[in-house]
């Protein structure tokens, strides 16, 4: 149960951070006329195609005692980043970034630009237009983004293993717990955990597709994302 609680805690933290990071990032990607923004789009999408071990490897190096992130963390918080919960959160945020940004971007871009013109003509600045028009019309995208970040973080394995190791209560998440159980031939325990994950994943995808149906257009689907 420790592993499940840890996974839920991790997923909650990551989803919250991704919402705060993803909303401005997606808004910038949707609005910026900058020609080179495809580079940033490619970087955000990298975790979709990169093997988790590659991402995990570089993060581990960066977070290690001699890596830049590790040194920074050591200086300010007095302990290392690798094999810690904080390190796991940071790695998961990067790994789930495309799942958070893509639905947000799709719904921000889907807002009729005439509405934004109308808002400006009615005297609203960019900030007011965002909070009164763009964001309220993008609620399905925000929910999709949150739900996918949450689910993707719960289900991740490779990055967690690389960066977090397998410390019970600190970095041993559900997926790693299942792996451990299987390695020790404890199939009943593995099955129990796997069922929970299966249920969560199904619930999450059902929510996403129900939202897509209500919005009448695709904010996200596994077929377009991968």
């Amino acid at each position: 149960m420790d592993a499940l609680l840890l996974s839920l805690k991790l997923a909650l933290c990551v989803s919250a951070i991704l919402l705060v990071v993803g909303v401005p990032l997606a808004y910038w990607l949707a609005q910026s006329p900058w020609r080179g923004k495809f580079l940033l789009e490619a970087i955000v999408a990298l975790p979709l195609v990169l093997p988790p071990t590659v991402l995990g490897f570089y993060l581990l190096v960066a977070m290690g005692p001699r890596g830049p992130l590790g040194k920074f963390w050591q200086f300010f918080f007095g302990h290392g980043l690798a094999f810690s919960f904080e390190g796991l959160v940071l790695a998961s945020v990067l790994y789930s970034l495309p799942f958070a940004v893509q639905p947000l971007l799709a719904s921000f871009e889907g807002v009729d630009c005439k509405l934004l013109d109308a808002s400006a003509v009615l005297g609203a600045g960019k900030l007011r237009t965002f909070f009164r028009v763009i964001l309220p019309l993008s609620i399905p995208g925000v929910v999709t983004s949150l739900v996918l970040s949450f689910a993707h973080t719960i289900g991740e394995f490779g990055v967690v293993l690389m960066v977090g190791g397998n410390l019970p209560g600190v970095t041993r998440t559900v997926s790693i717990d299942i792996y451990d159980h299987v390695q020790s031939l404890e199939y009943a325990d593995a099955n129990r955990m796997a069922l929970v994950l299966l249920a969560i994943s199904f619930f999450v995808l059902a929510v996403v597709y129900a939202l897509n149906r209500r919005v009448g257009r695709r904010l996200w689907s596994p077929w377009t994302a991968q």
Partner: protein
Amino acid sequence: MVTVDCAINSAALAVRVRKQLPRARSTSFLLDVSFKVLPGITILLGPSGAGKSTVLDCIAGLLRPDAGKISVDGDVLFDSEGGTDRPIQARRIAYVFQSLALFPHMSAEENVAYALHHLPKEERSTRTQEILKAFRVETLRTRKPSEISGGEKQRVALARSLVTQPRVLLLDEPLTGLDAELKAAIVDDLRAWNAARRIPVLYVTHSRDEVDALGERVIAMENGHIVSEGTPHEVLEAPRRKKLAQAAGFENLLEGTVVDLREADGVMRVRLAESVCEIEVPLGYAAVGDRVRLAIRAGDILLATARPQGLSARNVIEGRILTMERRGNLVSARVNCGVIFIVHVTPGAVRTLELAEQSQVWLVLKTHSCYLVAD
């Protein structure tokens, strides 16, 4: 309180805008207009693609002109020379888009109150109720745009744009898709609202029908330029040229007199000067009896050696070849049909048809190959 504020507002909108616009297929489009809009409704008339909406976007500040000056009663909103470019939010210009752009997640009341967020709650509510009433939509306060009819949406959109007490109102075909009666009712309410305030209203449309019903003044635009300006009567009936084709590049420039207007077909018949020869040309701003000039490209005229039948082309003119002259890959023939036409044909056609001087021929001309030109 409201009237005092608006009495100061009654003023003219002066616009001078030049903008190069990229268009599809690498042909660029130059918008170059200069006009004044006085208090009351002025119609900006022209076919789609004439640049009408672009003008409105420039006035509202959604687009930046390459050069020009836009001012409301001397208050400069944009001036390329002075470096003035007031932000959209600070222009106090109301703009109703063709799509209306009502916020779909807000009720009619919330839509209208959107621009009043800086006011105290009580005043905001008073002003909102007042304008909803003026446009007869006070009973729809709590409804979302998706829950009201097209005409009601248009009323809410007008109320939303006017509740800010703007200095100018821009309307981009906001009443398209409404039947004439409903349209007239909405315009009456707009007129009533504007009677006390007298702000300039610029109403864009491509429909000639709306001109008489709505406008006190009309500005006709085509291809990014103003082609005529005046009262609806002057613009629609006076002998002005709708198509301002450049005379250069046309081998045939013919004088003529309008003998018949067929508005329903969008054509008129023109008798060519000093002949009995009549041809059908696209409808222009002209009246029966007006003198007009037509331009026709020599390459747009077909030549036949027998009277052709079953053609979609409306003009078949009998004539006789006067002279033929070879010019590189084509032959230029002068044909006498009462007036002289210059016709370009290929050397191959000359051989096959056995064309020679004094041959009897028939000229075939499509209506839309005939251009009205300015004097």
